[in-house]
């Protein structure tokens, strides 16, 4: 049986790991390569780096981090943040990323999704969606790291990018991100039940039960978390053991 994936996410700023609470108040939590190695040995199913470096001059640090991680961790690595062009994707893949996640650039230029999927294969292209509740069963997407609102409906957008060849949706609830009150399972199930490609749940996980709910209520194929792992509240193994006890298939 296909396993539900547990994916620790590292927010990386100028080569260092940080994690925001509601996208602000960043706290340094270490060296990404060292953290990645730990997660790799703990049984993470994949790793995710989100580069939040503001200045493009400082972006080169990311490539070095990706390269070193890929040389040490033999599990899939997704890298996102500031990916704007086919060339950006190509450079990340060349440095050892397995998948590239695109956010703002896909909203501004939807053609990029189809182009990237055609060139590198659907399974390489993850579309990251930051969604905020806008009413009953309705969410709008935000761009620019959650700073810029749009009037684009999250569900319609996810359906569109899936049709264009995206391989996966990384769906972050902006309402829940950093709150530790659980994933927005209504958002997850609304999107997941409307598209064929896998949905990765993100934003809000605070305890073990939240992971279970993300699968059972949200219908997520994979569960992403950051601070809950970084600060040692729970290990990857804790999460997997708990999911297995609830009869959810995980790789132990």
């Amino acid at each position, binding site marked *: *049986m*296909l*396993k*539900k*994936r547990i994916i620790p996410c590292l927010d990386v700023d100028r080569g260092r790991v940080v994690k925001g609470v509601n996208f602000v108040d960043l706290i340094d939590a270490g060296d990404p390569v060292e953290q990645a190695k730990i997660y*790799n040995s703990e049984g993470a*199913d994949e790793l995710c780096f989100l580069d939040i470096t503001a200045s493009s001059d400082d972006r080169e640090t990311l490539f070095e981090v990706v390269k070193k991680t*890929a*040389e040490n961790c*033999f*599990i*899939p690595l997704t890298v996102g943040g500031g990916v704007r062009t086919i060339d950006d994707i190509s450079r990340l*893949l*060349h*440095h*050892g990323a*397995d998948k590239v996640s695109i956010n703002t650039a896909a909203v501004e230029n939807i053609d990029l999704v189809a182009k990237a999927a*055609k*060139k*590198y*294969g*659907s*399974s*390489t292209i993850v579309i990251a969606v930051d969604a905020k509740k806008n009413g009953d069963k309705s969410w709008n997407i935000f761009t620019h790291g959650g700073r810029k609102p749009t009037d684009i409906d999250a569900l319609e957008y996810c359906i569109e990018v899936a049709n264009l060849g995206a*391989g*996966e949706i990384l769906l972050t609830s902006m309402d829940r991100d950093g709150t530790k009150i659980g994933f927005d399972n209504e958002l997850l199930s609304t999107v997941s039940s409307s598209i*064929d*490609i*896998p949905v990765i749940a993100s934003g809000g996980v605070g305890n073990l039960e939240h992971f279970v709910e993300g699968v059972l209520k949200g219908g997520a*194929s*994979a569960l992403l978390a950051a601070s809950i792992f970084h600060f040692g509240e729970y290990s990857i193994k804790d999460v997997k053991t708990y999911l297995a006890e609830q009869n959810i298939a995980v*790789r132990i």
Partner: protein
Amino acid sequence: MKLVIINYGSGNLHSVHKAFEAVNNNLENPYEIIVTNTPSEILNADKLVLPGVGAFQDCKNAIHKIDGLFESLEEVVIGEKKAFMGICVGMQLLAEKSLEFGECEGFGWIPGEVIKIEAPADYKIPHMGWNEVTFRNHELLNNISQNTDFYFVHSYYFRTQKNENCIATTKYPNPITAAVLKENIYGTQFHPEKSHNNGKQIITNFLEWEPS
């Protein structure tokens, strides 16, 4: 001994190279690992690895764009019967044809065709993530337990014409070919380079393999 990893611009080339290097460094008699698309170097290979991600046709075209690449591969693998391993699309290319984006011819080294995964509506496509593999006993699967998880990412799979060429399968929920074998020609649908320690074992087995 020379192990050649074919470079035709495949997205997983780097990962495959690094994983083979990591395993190779632990061997008693390590290989010289060469990443190349030069026919003269391919002709000197003792073992070959063909990575591949993306669309079947794009990979096939990329290979044929490089002068003499396919011909040198054919010479070493079919002519001289050197051990060959294809990974993901690199494995699918061994088929006679693929039905991804219309019909496209493959290498035709193992009878069968590459077709879309058929799964019930609540099964996500691509088949992406860790899934259990069952297999027939073979030295290429030494030190691997039945039902071990490997990392898959694909929407199409290789349906071999003969059962004997399918040596490993996974279920989604229908059986899907996970590895093929015909004499010296071997391929995995899953990504050993992304399958952590069990993936490294698969690579070790291939490096130690001497097809009869």
